Every structure is written in structure tokens, then in C-alpha cells.
């Protein structure tokens, strides 16, 4: 698929029935926000202002945005080390994300988590995760909780192609159909797990076919097309809300950059990269919106300006926020005890 897909000129198609102009513009804006958030973060990281690991998801924005467009309040997501896009799509505020990357008290995790652990429990974002596949069993439990609490909420579990080699992937799929929980597995197959091409993770593997052996509906979709992703997830979410159990979606996408900032990614093929770059989901949706009369050039410019402003404000917020006292490293280990075990 890689080669041909990369060379294909994407047709604009006709406007989706089930998405309003407002929703589509939200998607566009959200994808742009993710892209520019990460651009900004990269620049600040390279300038030495941000520490730790920075795994960027540039190129993949359509997957979380298409997915989260199908969710509503009360729904839950789990994410990965490459989670900026997922959590912004679900509703994280870039202000508090920058603040987290800068290690400030106003960050989502008060500077204790950093890029790989951003969470906003109030919005059902129960955590990015530094452990590949770590979120899968947790998402299973969140979905079980949706079910046991008699809600019609659902859980989305984001994970990468690399995670499909871990045992926890299998356990989560298996338990999810046994229990028929409202869980949507969204595999962001960006063709690489760190330096390893997808073909070296699983031998000639057709993921939806594998998922179907657990008896759940499964499909592979174009992860560069936010509308397609939305459609597949919306179907899965509907099934889940009706109590019809889990679904599996493989979204084929691409990591435009290296594994993390600083990775020269010499293992990636230059031509392959350029092919995929041509399929960039953001300009693609932009073209579509213009074609369908949902977006004028002025509106597009304004969205861009707003996004830039939001990011600018976010950076300023972060930089002007206080650093936690170093000794705050000792708090938040337990609810009921301090780190020595004294009751609080």
C-alpha cells in the first residue's frame, strides 16, 4: 500500500452527510492546533527550553481528531508516548500542556509527568503512557467501568503498530470481546515502531483480520483522511453505546519525523517520506473544505492566526507560570499518606 498510496493524488470527493461545516472546521482547526503545537514544542525543545523526550505525531493528526470528533463528554481515552495529538483532540488545553513540558505548577501534571504522561482526568483523558502497550489493559478497565456503571460512555484506546507485538495487546483484545465492553481500539499504524518498520513487527500481518479472530468488527482505514477516520470510529462508537461490544480500527498513517526530536531517522526511506508528506491530512481537509464551500481563504487565514495566537499565549502562560518548589517532587505519591507513610 505504501508506495501506491504515497504517489496517489488524493481526490476531494463529496462532502460527508453526517458532518456539519462547523464540525469539519473544528476538525481542521484541531489538526492545525496539534501540528503547530508540536512545531512550537520542537523549536522550544531544540532551543533547550524543554527537557526529556519529545515524540512528535506530525502527519498523524487525522487519526486522533477524526476519532475524538466521534466522542462526547464522559467518554474516556488512553494514549501513548506519542500522545500530544490524542490529548489535544480530546480536549486538552495547549496552555497547560506547554506548562507541563516546561515543568510548571500550572501544567496538567504539575511538572511531574512531562510529555509522556499528560492526562486530564476531568475530561476522561486518563493518561498518555511511557510504556508501549501499557494503556491497552487500562482502557479495557475504563470500558468495563463504563459498562458496570450503566453508562452509555465508551472508551477509546490509542496505540501504535509497535504495541501490537506486546502480550498486553492480545490480552486486552481477548478480554474485551469476552466482556463485550464499549471499547474502540484505534491502532495508529505509522509504519514504524521506533526504527523498526511495521513489516518487522509482525510477519505479513493484516491487523483487522487478526482482530476479527477475537470476534469484533474490524477495519483498516486511511489514517490520512480525517473524515474516513471519523466515519469508522463513529460506527464503532455507535455499536459500543448500544452495548454491542468492542471494535478495532487500524488507521494507516505516517510519522513525518523521527521517533523523537533528535532522531535523525536515517532508517526511513526518503522517497517513502516524501510520498506520505504529499498526503498530509491538514492541507487535504483544507482543500476539501474550500471545495465544498465550508471554508474561505479568509477563514482559513483566521483559523491559522487564532491557532498561532493560542500557541503564543500558551507558551507565554507556560513561561510565566511558576516552577514548583523542587521539594514538590515529594508530594502526590499517595492520597492518604506522604511519601514517608505519615497520614495526611
Amino acid at each position, binding site marked *: 500500500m505504501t508506495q501506491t498510496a504515497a504517489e496517489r493524488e488524493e481526490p476531494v470527493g463529496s462532502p460527508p452527510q453526517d458532518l456539519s461545516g462547523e464540525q469539519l472546521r473544528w476538525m481542521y482547526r484541531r489538526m492545525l492546533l496539534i501540528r503547530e503545537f508540536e512545531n512550537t514544542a520542537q523549536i522550544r525543545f531544540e532551543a533547550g527550553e524543554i527537557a526529556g523526550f519529545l515524540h512528535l505525531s506530525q502527519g498523524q493528526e487525522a487519526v486522533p481528531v477524526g476519532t475524538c470528533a466521534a466522542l462526547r463528554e464522559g467518554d474516556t481515552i488512553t494514549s501513548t508516548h506519542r500522545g500530544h495529538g490524542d490529548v489535544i483532540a480530546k480536549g486538552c488545553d495547549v496552555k497547560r500542556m506547554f506548562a507541563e513540558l516546561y515543568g510548571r505548577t500550572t501544567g496538567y501534571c504539575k511538572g511531574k509527568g512531562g510529555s509522556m504522561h499528560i492526562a486530564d482526568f476531568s475530561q476522561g483523558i486518563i493518561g498518555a503512557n511511557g510504556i508501549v502497550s501499557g494503556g491497552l489493559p*487500562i482502557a479495557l478497565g*475504563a470500558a468495563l467501568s463504563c459498562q458496570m456503571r450503566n453508562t452509555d460512555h465508551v472508551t477509546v484506546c490509542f496505540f501504535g503498530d509497535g504495541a501490537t507485538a506486546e502480550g498486553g495487546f492480545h490480552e486486552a483484545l481477548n478480554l474485551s470481546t469476552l466482556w463485550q465492553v464499549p471499547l474502540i481500539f484505534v491502532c495508529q499504524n505509522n509504519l514504524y515502531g521506533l526504527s523498526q518498520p511495521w513489516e518487522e513487527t509482525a510477519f505479513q500481518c493484516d491487523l483487522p483480520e487478526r482482530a476479527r479472530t477475537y470476534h469484533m468488527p474490524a477495519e483498516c482505514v486511511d489514517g490520512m483522511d480525517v473524515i474516513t477516520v471519523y466515519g469508522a470510529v463513529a460506527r464503532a462508537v455507535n455499536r459500543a453505546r448500544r452495548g454491542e461490544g468492542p471494535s478495532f480500527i487500524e488507521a494507516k498513517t505516517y510519522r513525518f519525523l523521527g521517533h523523537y526530536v533528535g532522531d535523525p531517522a536515517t532508517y526511513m526511506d526518503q522517497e517513502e517520506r516524501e510520498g506520505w508528506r504529499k498526503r498530509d491530512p491538514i492541507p487535504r481537509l483544507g482543500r476539501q473544505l474550500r471545495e465544498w464551500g465550508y471554508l474561505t481563504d479568509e477563514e482559513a487565514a483566521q483559523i491559522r492566526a487564532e491557532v498561532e495566537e493560542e500557541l503564543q499565549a500558551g507558551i507565554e502562560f507556560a513561561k510565566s507560570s511558576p516552577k514548583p518548589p523542587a521539594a514538590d517532587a515529594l508530594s502526590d505519591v499517595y492520597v492518604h499518606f506522604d511519601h514517608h507513610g505519615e497520614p495526611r
Partner: protein
Amino acid sequence: MREITYREALREALREEMERDETVFLMGEDIADPFGSAYKVTLGLSPQFGTERVRQTPISEQGFVGAGVGAAVTGMRPVVEIMYIDFATMAMDQIANQAAKLRYMSGGQAKVPLVIRTQGGPGRSSAAQHAQSLEAWFAHIPGLLVAMPSTPYDAKGLLKTAIRLDDPVVFIEQKLLYNTEGPVPEEEYTLPFGEADVKREGSDCTVVATSMTVLKALKAADILEREGISVEVVDPRTLFPLDIETITASVCKTSRVVVTHEAVERCGFGAEIVAQIAQTAFGYIDAPIQRVCAPSVPPPFAQHMEAFTMIDEHKIADRVRRLVTGEL
């Protein structure tokens, strides 16, 4: 007061908490009736609460412990059972990297009211993969609470508390204790984490013992009493939080201390107790601090070899005796 078994005490705790709070539910392998779990603690609960809340799982420790984590952070209070502590090896990521750290990593957002019940220890010729005592692993991980009750009374009170706490608890039972009996009030009660219990007062030597070895220490104290040696037995009950004050107070009183547990000596929890005593009660100790722990070998199969590696009253009594008489 009525006497019930450790097993019944645990079952009562589960039943009462499930009756009290409908978000409490159980997950684990073979926990539903008629099997009712490997050591029968959950027997009788699935008929009362149904198999949704006494939720049997396939053999997927990583999967169901992780499911416990996910359920715990989204409004439920799961109690998951790992059949043998040795199988916790299958779920260490979910226990040590996820359950233990979610609160901290999220800057205090997450609450993780998860109880992981499991059992360990030797004594049934279960061999190397069914008889370990791995409590030190969990006590080493910030973010986890660790309980190790030795009596039915403690088991019930601590388990009820564990279920009510908003922090993840590794709750470690012992396979030979399930049939032991002891007084447990009819009325509802809970026990706090972080309070050691002086199981017996004495003046010549302190024995700090956990789980099964508390019973052995008490027997040793009986033996030594006849010889005129007075032993104080302190049971921390929870390894974290650890009530070092009560331990230290006892050591300062008796000026001698033996620490005992079923886990292997090397890097066992006893080392931590010794290290804390060596720092806080240094000036009060008259003789080298002793550990009576399993030799650092895997649990052997054959009964007589297993017995050789286990802690009994004689090993404890012998060490205390030599300590008190100045032979050490």
C-alpha cells in the same frame, strides 16, 4: 468473642464491603462458584453478587490487573486476585509502572482505589514457582501500599480498609494461614494502615515478624519463656506505611532485635527494617541485629528440603537465645 478462620475473615471483609458499596467488585481466575478461588476465599460470593461483580477472568494477569487499574481510575473499586504471588511477575508493569505511578505522573489527579489480593509463602511443597514471598518488590515501589496480615482479626480489618483507601494496595495473604482461627468481632470494624501490633510483650528481645512468622515467633516466645527469656513480638501488619516508631520503641526497650520473615534474606523486607533500626535506634542496641529469613534459594519441592528452608519457632528461638546469652 467468636473465632473464625483467616479465610472466613477475608470473605467477610469482601462481602461486607461489596454490600456497602456497589462499586466494589472482584476480578480474578476461577473466583466464582463452584470453584470459589484457589484457596476458597471467594467461595459463596458469586451466588450473592453475581458473576458481573465476582468476575472470573481468563489467565491474563496483565490484562485483568490492568483492567483493575482502568476501572479504579474511572469510578470503580476493584479487588483483583492474583492466584499466587509468583504470577504477579506477569503483571508487574501494571502494578509497578501504572497503578503505583498514575497518581504521581498525573500530578495528583488520579486516585487508584485498587486492591490486589494475592498469597505467597512456602509450606505445601509447591516448589519454586508457587511458593515465593515477593513483598519486598512491592514495598520498593513508591505509590503502592503493602499489607501482610497474620491473624483473622488483622486480615478482616485491614482488607476492609484496603478497599476503602484511594491508593493501590498489594494485599498479601499466606497459604498456610487460611485455616488458622482467631477471634473476630461480629460488629463491623476496620484497622488503620501504618499501625504495628505488639502481639506479645516482653523485655529481653524484640522479634519483628510478618505474616506466617508472627505465629512462629509467638511459639518461639512460649519456648523461651520457659527458659526465662522474655520476648516481645511486633507485627508491622503493613509494610508500607511502616510503623517504625512502634518497632523502635520496642527495640529501645529490649535492646536486642531479631527480624524474621519467610522471604529469602537477601534484599528481603527485613533488610529495610534492619536498616531503619540501625539508623534510628543505633545507640540503644546491645548486640548485632539479626535476621532469621529463608536462605537465598528458590523454594524446593521435597517436603523435608522445603522445611529446611522455612522459618519455624526453633530457628527463631535459637537465634534469640544466642543473642540474649551473648553468643552473637
